């Protein structure tokens, strides 16, 4: 009897399996829709509408489709135009809202940097973070956007933006090398007074401002406010837009694939290189020009720890930044509909995971090395993981994202020690390590971990296929990424360093020793950050 039951069960299981594997029915023959079909679509009666629609079954129907010619009534062309506009509308809303999230990251940067500085400089540090938003935006609106995106040649998800079509290029090795765009000055020149262009501008502007605000952290507590204004303006107008054009605006780095067969060209999905490495490397240049804070190094070169005044707002700021990063990375699809944009879910999960493993990596490293799970370095580890995953977020799977974040968490600790002790470059908030070192790591990781599964409309940077890294079979992608890294280290650093040397000559980069010892709030800003607090000096050995 038992054997019979067992046999029956096995037969039933196989039958079920066979049934589930039965070939699907052939697709029904598609019949073209005619205008007459549209006229026969039922619409809710007005009597029903007047009763309200609590079940949401009547609101939004064929009568909501815009009709071009009321005499003809609804046509197929009307319906198709509405579908196209709906797709672009979804992408507009997605890109704008994610752009708003990125804008809020400015608040996160402001409190992280201010918390890591001393209370006597709170107003000055906060004001730099506050005004870099306006200074950068002005420079970018004036010229930066045109340099970056003026020759991008179209953004399919946002309705095409065909007016951004003029790139200045030179010919090198028989190939075209795009250097800078030429349309979009004041958002009016060259036909750029356009709804799609406005979306591109808003999204790219908040990215640019993120790069600028990185520098205010590394040069904090001794940077002259007037020099900060000039330096930030030039960075928003030229430094950032140039590299961003090469990577995102149709420039020569993006075309390394089409011109030289190097993978899909330089790939930086949301800006580990374009935003964070540009910010971090400029931070290194500015910190070298400005010099270390008084008391940071003893006469024998031994570094002293200068502790920030509020770890609570530091970690709160890290959370704000992690929240904003959901705009940074998933928003970089520039849409939620069409061209593989539904990958936003994968990008968001990759972002979460890398941030988490970055925080863990830094906490465990500090715990093992110094005996305590350091709070500020755990926060920096979270940010390092997020910075590193920014470039590969659209091209890797969750395992790759977790590994990239974990390495970033440890790398940020090692880099902070290296910059502090070996280079003797003073960086109060660790911006050079968080954004510079890990921005470069993020760019390289695309060339290693990209799994070849992403598909954004069938090609990337004009090369058919998916972005694939060394571990999945394409070594040439890693070469393209490394050329991007050398461009950041060799060109962006040099440009930033020379610009800031010139500013130092004409404006002066550093406040007086008296102002620095007193705290920059009164001498530079005219008001204390915490006027009712009694600030106590702390002796340091020099």
């Amino acid at each position, binding site marked *: 009897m038992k054997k019979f039951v067992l046999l029956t069960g096995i037969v039933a299981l196989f039958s079920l399996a066979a049934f589930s594997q039965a070939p699907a029915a052939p697709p029904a023959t598609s019949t073209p829709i005619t205008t007459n079909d549209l006229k026969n679509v039922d619409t809710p009666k007005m009597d029903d509408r007047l009763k309200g629609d609590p079940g949401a079954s009547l609101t939004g129907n064929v009568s909501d489709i815009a009709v071009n010619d009321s005499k003809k009534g609804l046509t197929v062309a009307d319906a198709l135009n509405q579908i196209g506009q709906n797709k672009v509308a979804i992408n507009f809303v997605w890109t704008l809202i994610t752009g708003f999230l990125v804008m809020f990251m400015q608040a996160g940067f402001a409190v992280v940097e201010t918390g890591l500085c001393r209370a006597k400089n709170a107003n000055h540090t906060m004001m730099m973070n506050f005004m870099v938003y306006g200074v950068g935006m002005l420079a970018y609106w004036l010229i930066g956007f045109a340099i970056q995106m003026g020759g991008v040649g179209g953004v399919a998800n946002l309705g095409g933006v065909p007016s951004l079509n003029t790139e200045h290029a030179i010919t*090198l*090795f028989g190939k075209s090398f795009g250097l800078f765009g030429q349309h979009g000055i004041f958002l009016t020149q060259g036909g750029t007074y356009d709804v799609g262009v406005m979306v591109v501008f808003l999204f790219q502007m908040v990215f640019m401002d993120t790069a600028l605000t990185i520098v205010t952290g590394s040069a904090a507590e001794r940077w002259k406010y007037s020099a900060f204004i000039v330096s930030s303006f030039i960075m928003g107008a030229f430094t950032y837009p140039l590299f961003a054009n090469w990577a995102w605006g149709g420039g020569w780095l993006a075309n*390394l694939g089409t*011109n*030289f067969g*190097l993978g899909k060209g330089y790939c930086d999905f949301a800006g580990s290189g374009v935003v964070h490495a540009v910010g971090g490397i400029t931070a*290194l240049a500015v910190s*070298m020009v400005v*010099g*270390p804070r*008084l008391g*940071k*190094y*003893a*006469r024998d*070169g031994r570094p002293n720890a200068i502790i920030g005044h509020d770890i609570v707002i530091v970690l709160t700021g890290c959370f704000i930044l992690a929240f904003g990063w959901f705009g940074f990375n998933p928003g970089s699809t520039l849409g939620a509909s069409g061209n593989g944009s539904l990958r936003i879910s994968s990008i968001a999960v990759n972002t979460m995971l890398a941030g988490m493993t970055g925080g863990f990596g830094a906490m465990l490293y500090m715990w093992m090395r110094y005996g305590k799970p350091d709070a500020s370095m755990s926060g920096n580890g979270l940010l390092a993981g997020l910075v590193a995953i920014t470039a590969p977020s659209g091209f890797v799977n969750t395992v790759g994202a977790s590994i990239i974040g974990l390495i970033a968490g440890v790398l940020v600790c090692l880099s902070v020690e290296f910059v502090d002790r070996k*280079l*003797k*470059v003073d960086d109060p908030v660790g911006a050079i390590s968080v954004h510079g070192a890990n921005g470069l790591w993020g760019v390289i990781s695309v060339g290693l971990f990209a799994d070849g599964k992403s598909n954004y409309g069938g090609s990337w940077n004009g090369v058919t296929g998916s972005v694939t890294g060394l571990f999945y079979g394409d*070594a*040439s992608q*890693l*070469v393209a990424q*490394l*050329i991007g*890294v*050398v*461009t950041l*280290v*060799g*060109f962006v*650093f*040099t440009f930033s*360093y*020379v610009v800031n*040397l010139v500013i130092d000559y004409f404006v002066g980069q550093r406040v007086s020793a008296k102002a620095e010892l007193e705290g920059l709030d009164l001498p530079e800003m005219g008001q204390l950050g915490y006027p009712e607090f009694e600030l106590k000096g702390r002796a340091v050995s*020099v």
Partner: protein
Amino acid sequence: MIFSGIVITLLGFLLSVLSLGFVSSVGGRMTMVLIGLAVSLFGIMGVINRANLKNAIWRR
């Protein structure tokens, strides 16, 4: 000294760009790009930073 550092750093970048025109294999380009990266890093850390440290504020 700082000027030399700037030139060396820029040279590393130019070396990696030149790899696009003068080398066609992936391995060859990778090698040239890595050499360019090393040159640029030497320019920043070994020359420019060292020049800055000679006149560092904490030495005075």
